[in-house]
C-alpha cells in the first residue's frame, strides 16, 4: 500500500536524522514531534468531529506545567510518570470543560474553549508564587525508562535518548489514533461531523461522542505539552495564550485537516518554515499570516490536499 510505504520511509528518515542531519536540525525535530502528538489529538476534534477549539493550548500548558512542577517541586524525574501524570491531569481538567463545551457547536464552542484557555493563562500569569508568573517554571531534565541521564551533555541527551523517546511516543500516539479513527467510534464521529441530526436519529449519542472526542484530544495535547518542556528546559504562560491555540489550528489546516497525517505534516512544515523565516527576518507573523490567508482561500485542504487531490475541496466543511 502506497501510504504504508510513505509512512515507513518517513519514519526511517526521522529515525536516521540524528546520524545524518546537523545537530541544529535534529533539535528542531523535538518540538515537531511534540506538536505532532498535540495535533493528532486536536484533529480528532477538528477534522473528524467538526469542532474547532480555540483553547486547546490550555491542555498543552497543563501537560507542560505538570512536568515542570513534578521535576522542580515534586522531585519526580521519571518521564513515564510525568507523561501519565500529564494525561491524568489533562483528563481531570478536560472532563468538566468538555462537559460544558460540547453542549455548543461552531462559534459558541470556539468561544467557550477560548475562555477556558484564557482562565488558565491568567491563572499561571498572576499566581506567580506558584507558577513563576511570566518567567515560567524550569522543566528539569527527566530520566528516561528509569535511567538518570544527568551526566550527559545537554545536546547529546536531547539529540540522542530524548529524541528517540519522543519519536516512540509520537509513533505510539499515531498508532492509537489510527485505531481510534478507524474504529466504529471514529466512524460515528465522522457521521456527527457530516450530519449531526442524522447521527442522532441513527441512535448515536451526539453530545456523548463529542465529549469523548474532546477528552481524548485533551489527553493528546497534555502528553504533547509535557514533551515540549525538556528541550527548552522551561515552560511559560504563553503556552496557554489564545494565539497559541490559534497557531495549533493553523498548523492543522496547513498540513490538512482532512487527512490522518496532515496535522503531523503541518507541524513539521510550520516548525521548520518558522525557524527558517525567523533566521532571515524577525517578522514571521507577517509572512505566516499571509500564508494562512492563502491556504484558507485557495487550498482549504492544506498541503496534503495539494498532494493527494482525490476529492474536490470541501466548501461547506469544516
Amino acid at each position, binding site marked *: 500500500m502506497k501510504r504504508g510505504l510513505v509512512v515507513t520511509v518517513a519514519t526511517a528518515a526521522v529515525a536516521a536524522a540524528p546520524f545524518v542531519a546537523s545537530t541544529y536540525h535534529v533539535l528542531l525535530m523535538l518540538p515537531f514531534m511534540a506538536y505532532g502528538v498535540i495535533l493528532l489529538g486536536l484533529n480528532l476534534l477538528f477534522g473528524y468531529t467538526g469542532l*474547532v477549539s*480555540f483553547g486547546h493550548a490550555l491542555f498543552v500548558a497543563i501537560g507542560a506545567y505538570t512536568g515542570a512542577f513534578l521535576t522542580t517541586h515534586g522531585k519526580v524525574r521519571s518521564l513515564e510518570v510525568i507523561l501519565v501524570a500529564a494525561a491524568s491531569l489533562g483528563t481531570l481538567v478536560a472532563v468538566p470543560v468538555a462537559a*460544558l463545551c460540547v453542549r*455548543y*457547536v*461552531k*462559534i*459558541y464552542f*470556539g*468561544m*467557550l474553549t*477560548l*475562555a*477556558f484557555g*484564557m*482562565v488558565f493563562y*491568567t*491563572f499561571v500569569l*498572576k*499566581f506567580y508564587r506558584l507558577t513563576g508568573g511570566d518567567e515560567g517554571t524550569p522543566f528539569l531534565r527527566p530520566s528516561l525508562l528509569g535511567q538518570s541521564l544527568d551526566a550527559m551533555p545537554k545536546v547529546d541527551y536531547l539529540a540522542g535518548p530524548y529524541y528517540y523517546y519522543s519519536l516512540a511516543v509520537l509513533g505510539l500516539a499515531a498508532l492509537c489514533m489510527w485505531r481510534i479513527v478507524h474504529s466504529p467510534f471514529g466512524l460515528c464521529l465522522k457521521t456527527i461531523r457530516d450530519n449531526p441530526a442524522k447521527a442522532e436519529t441513527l441512535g448515536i449519542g451526539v453530545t456523548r461522542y463529542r465529549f469523548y472526542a474532546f477528552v481524548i484530544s485533551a489527553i493528546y495535547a497534555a502528553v504533547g505539552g509535557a514533551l515540549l518542556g525538556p528541550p527548552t528546559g522551561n515552560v511559560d504562560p504563553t503556552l496557554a495564550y*489564545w*494565539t497559541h491555540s*490559534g497557531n495549533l*489550528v*493553523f498548523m492543522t*489546516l496547513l498540513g490538512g485537516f482532512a487527512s490522518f497525517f496532515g496535522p503531523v505534516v503541518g507541524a513539521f512544515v510550520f516548525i521548520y518554515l518558522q525557524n527558517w523565516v525567523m533566521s532571515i527576518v*524577525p*517578522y*514571521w*507573523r*507577517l509572512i*505566516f*499570516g*499571509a500564508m*494562512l*490567508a492563502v491556504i*484558507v*482561500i485557495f487550498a*482549504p485542504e492544506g498541503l496534503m490536499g495539494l498532494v493527494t487531490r482525490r476529492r474536490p475541496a470541501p*466548501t*461547506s*466543511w*469544516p
Partner: protein
Amino acid sequence: MTPHVVNVLLSGVFHASILFLVAAGLQVVFGVQKIFNLACGSFYALGAYVGVSAVGWYADAGGPPALFIVPLALAGLAVGAVGVVVERGLLSFVYDRDETFQLLLTFAVVLMMEDAIRLTWGTAPRSTAGLYLAYGQVRLLGATVPVYNLVVIGASLAIALAIGWLLTRTAFGRIMRATADNREMAEALGVDMRRVSAKVFTLGAALGTLGGALVIPATAAMSEMGIELIVEAFAVVVIGGLGSIRGAFVGALVVGVLRSVAISVYPELEMLLIYLIVIVVLVLRPRGLFGGAAT
C-alpha cells in the same frame, strides 16, 4: 463615596467606553455578516499607532494643543478604511464557506497586522507625550479626574447614540437589520450584498481604529495591545450577547468597571474574574444578556 471609589469607578467607565467602541465594531460585523472578527483588536492597535503619529505631526506643525483631539479622532476614523481592504481583499472570497474558515482568515489578519505594526513603528512603546493632561483635571465628588477621560466617555456615549440612530432611523440601518435577520430574503429584495458587506465591515473596523486612537493619550501604544484587547472585547460581547449593540454597551460597562475594581482590590483576580463571568454566562445563558438565540 470616598474619592478612591470614585477614581476606581471613573477609570473603569473610561476603559469601558473604549471597550464599547471596539466591541460595537465586533457586534456590527457579527450581527450582519455572522463573522466573528478576531482582527478587531488589531484594528484597535492600528488606530492607536496611527493616532500617535497623527498627533505627532499635528504638534510638529504647530497646531494648538487644545485641539489635538480633532486630528486624533479624524486619523482614527480615516484608518478604518483598512476594513474595506480586508473585506474585499480577503473575506469576500470565503463568504460561501463554513464560518471556521472566516474565523481563521481574521486570525491571519491578526498575525499580519501585529508584524506590520512592528515593521512600521518599531517595537518600542509609543506615546503622546504630555497631551493627556492638555485639558487639565477637574475635581469630581472629591476625586481628581483628567478632563480627557470625561471627553472620551462623552464621545463614546454620543457614538452609541449615533449607532442607535443609524440602525433604527436610516435606510442603511434598515438594510443592515434586514440582512442580519434574513440574508437571502434581503438579497432577493434587491439589496446589493457586496456593498453592504463592504460598508458594514468598514464601519466595524472604523469603530475599532477610533477606539484605539482615543485611548492613546491615556496609555502607550504597544504591538501586543491588539491581541490583548480582543479577549476583553470578546468577554464584552459574550456577556452582552453576540450581535447586540445594547449588549456591547452593558457588557463593556460590566467588564470595564469590574476589571477596575478587581485591580484595586485584589490585582491577581483582574482578568481571571472576567473570564469566570464569561464562562458562567456562556453556560447559563449562552445568548448573553441581550443576544438572540444561540445555536
